[in-house]
């Protein structure tokens, strides 16, 4: 299988403290990978490094063979990495439809975007996403007025509209109700296969529902990697989680 994301010896040094340290993993095209780890394990920092928010002090990130290490955020995004933040990040003063319209453009440059309206292909893609995320009833609502769950789905929808090949999801179910969590799981499962997805999540019920292969981080390093069942039985993982009561 082709590798979508290759992380080689990635590290970042915050003045002596290595939040991520010689991290290496390969995520295949179309894979859904869950990253687990106790608080402070470096999961979010890993996403920051991949998406260009934080500059790595060592190591490489390759996206389909192309080196994207330490490129500016928008270039990494253009290369095909989409990112969802822990705190929902949408354009609050724009309507849902406008949010998706911003996401749909494949033209990064100002001058190429000096045109009115949407092409039929763009509209079709947006319609598919609306269908997938179930936001059809609130298209004209300002994003800032959406419920917490809807906001998360909108953000997810924007990543799909953006046609990211690799999607990074940072705790997509944080603060969601049971029902919302289960709908989010459905959306993610439907993306499986067509998108490569990297999820950081604490909700183990949710993880069990979506996970195939799991990577466990501890103190910035790779601790274990493998199918969910193996990981849950791994003594090293149990040790790492002892403080927080093990995987539950």
């Amino acid at each position, binding site marked *: 299988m082709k590798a979508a994301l290759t992380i080689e010896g990635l590290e970042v040094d915050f003045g002596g403290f290595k939040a991520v340290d010689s991290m290496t993993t390969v995520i295949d095209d179309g894979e859904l990978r869950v990253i687990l780890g106790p608080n402070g394990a470096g999961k979010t920092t890993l996403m920051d490094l991949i*998406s260009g*928010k934080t500059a790595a002090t060592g190591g490489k990130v390759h996206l389909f063979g192309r080196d994207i290490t330490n490129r*500016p*955020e*928008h*270039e990494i*995004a*253009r290369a095909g990495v*989409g*990112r969802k*933040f822990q705190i929902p*990040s*949408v*354009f*609050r*003063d*724009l*309507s849902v439809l*406008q*949010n998706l*319209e*911003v*996401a749909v*453009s494949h*033209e*990064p*440059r*100002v*001058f190429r*975007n*000096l*045109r*009115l309206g*949407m092409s039929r292909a763009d509209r079709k893609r947006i319609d598919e996403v609306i269908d997938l995320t179930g936001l059809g009833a609130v298209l*004209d*609502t*300002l994003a800032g*007025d959406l419920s917490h769950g809807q906001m998360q789905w909108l*953000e997810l929808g*924007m990543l799909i509209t*953006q046609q990211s090949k690799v999607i990074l999801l940072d705790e997509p179910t944080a603060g969601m109700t049971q029902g919302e969590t289960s709908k989010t799981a459905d959306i993610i499962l439907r993306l499986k296969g067509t998108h490569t997805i990297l999820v950081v999540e604490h909700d183990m019920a949710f993880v069990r529902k979506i996970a195939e292969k799991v990577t466990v981080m501890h103190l910035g390093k790779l601790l274990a990697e493998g199918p969910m069942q193996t990981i849950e039985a791994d003594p090293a993982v149990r040790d790492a989680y002892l403080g927080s009561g093990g995987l539950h």
Partner: protein
Amino acid sequence: MSNRIFILGDRAVYAAFIIIVLALPLLVDDVFWLNRIAKYLVFGMLGLAIALSWGYAGILNLGQGLFFGLGAYMIAMSLKLQSYTSLQQGSDKPIPDFMLWNAEPGAPTDLCCITPGSWLWIPFQAQWFGMAMAVVVPVVFALIIGSTIFRLRVSGVYVAIITLALVLLARLLFIDLQPVTNGFNGLTDLGWLTIAGIEFDPFMVATYYIIAVSVCVVLLLSRWLISTRAGLILQSTRDDPNRSRYLGYDVASYQVFFFTVSAGIAGFAGMLFVIVSEFATPTYFDIAFSISMVVWAAVGGRSSLIGAALGAILINTIEASVSESEMFQQAWRLIIGIVFVLVVLYMPRGLAGLARDVLARVVALSQRTGGKDSQSSHTAAE
């Protein structure tokens, strides 16, 4: 349904504005008033430029007067050279009068070297050069300033403070460069704009039309700009610049583009203002003037182009109407202060926002059944 009403209402306001502005000479007989209104239309353009950068890009430029002043000085140099005051010495080569006063004894009476730096004026003997520079110079400065600020990801209040410091810096330099700019006094006794042999006397209906048509064109162009996808992306960078970055947009380039467009409009406005007012002085670089523009836009509605323009026109027209007595003028300034505080506190979307809310209320009342209207108003549709 209600969205369509908002779009229709919006279009109606634009249409009404353009018709009134163009038909005004038929209603107003007094050329002095027409000249005044032309000035306020120029201020309307400034309000619009502020709305473009502040309302749509979230960039509060407290130094917009810099671009206005640059535009004004560029055309004023050309018009000064066309003035009789530059030909007083019986020479056929124009030399601004103040340069003669400032010249060292024995300096050659030629633009090349009469005062230090006077050579800068040489190309301005061609009026088209001054006109072009009135837009080019502000745009180039805005490009340099904008690229520096936004590439370094300076934002919010710091942009306001830097632009404020820049306009003050420009004010000092223009005052200090006495031999080139005539310092405190600025460029006065200007000639008239001359196009194809026609002299545009500031108190002429044709001159009014130059301003009126320019304002309408700029208004429509700006409206088009913000309705494009680039305009939408710009608004997205205002709401959440990080999200825009992770969607693949280079936020700085959008900010620089619209900052520069706004500056170009301000420079153009400066040029038009000189054509109707016949002077350019360092007061254009006063902080009070730059902040006044923000006041106009805030009162009219920072996120509505036409609202901001109307705010500027309205405030200045009222100000002119009450200015017969010194005391009333002072009282009016007091009222403006109070109104401004109230607008910031209670009406952050200004008159345009108020108009929308009223329209929404009317729509809701007439529909009775649906109650979701006021929520779904499109701020971006303006």
